[in-house]
């Protein structure tokens, strides 16, 4: 295998498609609020993937359109409080059961956004630590330590250009050593006991990436 390169950065939809392609058929999956929600649009029909929403549902369908056959139902929302639909085979349950599914290791995959991920897989995604910020954690900490695989989707660089993959998180942590894989616009990384392994590249080269990040990297492919 040679260095897998796409010639331009991935769009958010391309990142979501990459995540969806890595989710095994029949998996139970929780998608976080925001960019992770896009993954649902890229799951192939017939994949049998069952979406879990923390507010108490398995078998969540797409967002409700509000049309005559698909009215908005205030009693049927996702974790972002957006009206959604139910698929055949859906089930409802209360909050303690919903989080038992996470904590108890019953979910195969969760996909979360992040402010920062450290080289050893620490996650920071709930609080900037700014003095006037109002902390709000929701279900992020439970998901981070509970799902069998924790995938992060984010841009590799913050708006100020600083990398969001860091030696140590400077924002308050969501979970310690909990992230398995990070999908970004520029590259995908596996968090391993040996360090961060670059799986693929988009709009950059391995050497550019290694120069830009302040963490040791490993190639996920054999030298050419």
């Amino acid at each position: 295998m040679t260095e897998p390169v796409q010639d331009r950065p991935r769009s958010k939809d391309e990142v979501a498609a990459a995540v969806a392609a890595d989710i095994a058929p029949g998996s139970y999956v929780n998608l976080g609020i925001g960019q992770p929600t896009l993954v649902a649009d890229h799951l192939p029909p017939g994949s049998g993937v069952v979406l879990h929403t923390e507010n108490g549902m398995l078998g969540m369908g797409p967002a409700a359109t509000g049309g005559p056959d698909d009215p908005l139902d205030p009693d049927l929302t996702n974790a972002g409080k957006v009206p959604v639909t139910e698929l055949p085979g859906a089930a409802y349950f209360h909050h303690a059961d919903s989080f038992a599914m996470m904590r108890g290791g019953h979910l195969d995959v969760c996909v979360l956004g992040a402010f920062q991920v450290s080289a050893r897989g620490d996650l920071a995604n709930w609080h900037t630590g700014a003095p006037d910020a109002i902390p709000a954690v929701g279900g992020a900490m439970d998901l981070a330590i509970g799902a069998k695989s924790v995938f992060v989707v984010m841009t590799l660089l913050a708006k100020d250009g600083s990398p969001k993959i860091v030696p140590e998180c400077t924002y308050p942590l969501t979970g310690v050593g909990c992230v398995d894989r990070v999908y970004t616009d520029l590259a995908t990384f596996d968090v391993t006991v040996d360090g961060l392994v670059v799986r693929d590249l988009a709009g950059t080269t391995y050497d550019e990436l290694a120069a830009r990040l302040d963490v040791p990297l490993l190639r996920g492919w054999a030298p050419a």
Partner: protein
Amino acid sequence: MVTVCETAAEAVDGTEDGATVLVGGFGMAGMPVALVDALVDQGARDLTVVSNNAGNGDTGLAALLAAGRVRKIVCSFPRQHDSWVFDGLYRAGRIELEVVPQGTLAERMRAAGAGIGAFYCPTGVGTPLAEGKETREIDGRTYVLETPIRGDLALVGAHLADRAGNLVYRKTARNFGPVMATAAATTVVQVQRVVDVGSIDPEVVVTPGIYVDRVVAVGPAEVEGVA
């Protein structure tokens, strides 16, 4: 014994100053708006409110906050696009906030209702939300000790009740209702309709009436069998 109340005011009557009130709902789904509005009118002060969110818009829980009745809120996700009432109080230092991971919030109330003294939980280990709490390693994994959250009063929104207090919910509006119903000294439930005993299939009851003290129908249909 379950009391079927005629009004939401009757349902929340007797709430004391300083009470801990569990308020159901996830956003507005399952939010017992009529009961919270009645609590605003009832006038109890210095309340501790336990709820997933800290109020939306200007109604329901947000109205209780705006009326200055809440000393402290225990929740997982206070900040939302329409949580301006809470945001203003918090930034002015007029309300105390305890942020709890959502699953831990639910489990702490479940523990209270189930008679569990405390439990070791893996959520939040190594984060600011576990600071100062006892930790313990069990089979190679670190856990943090979490204590029950018990309410003096639980306000729950459900779909239907029978006259024995058995409840069924609707879709994701179930959320915290079944857990909070178990965790308070007095559990008050607003429902769309109160139906006769025997009208709900026992197999589909989600909250058995043993956990329920008062129910009130808030429509759209009126209470069946009540003139």
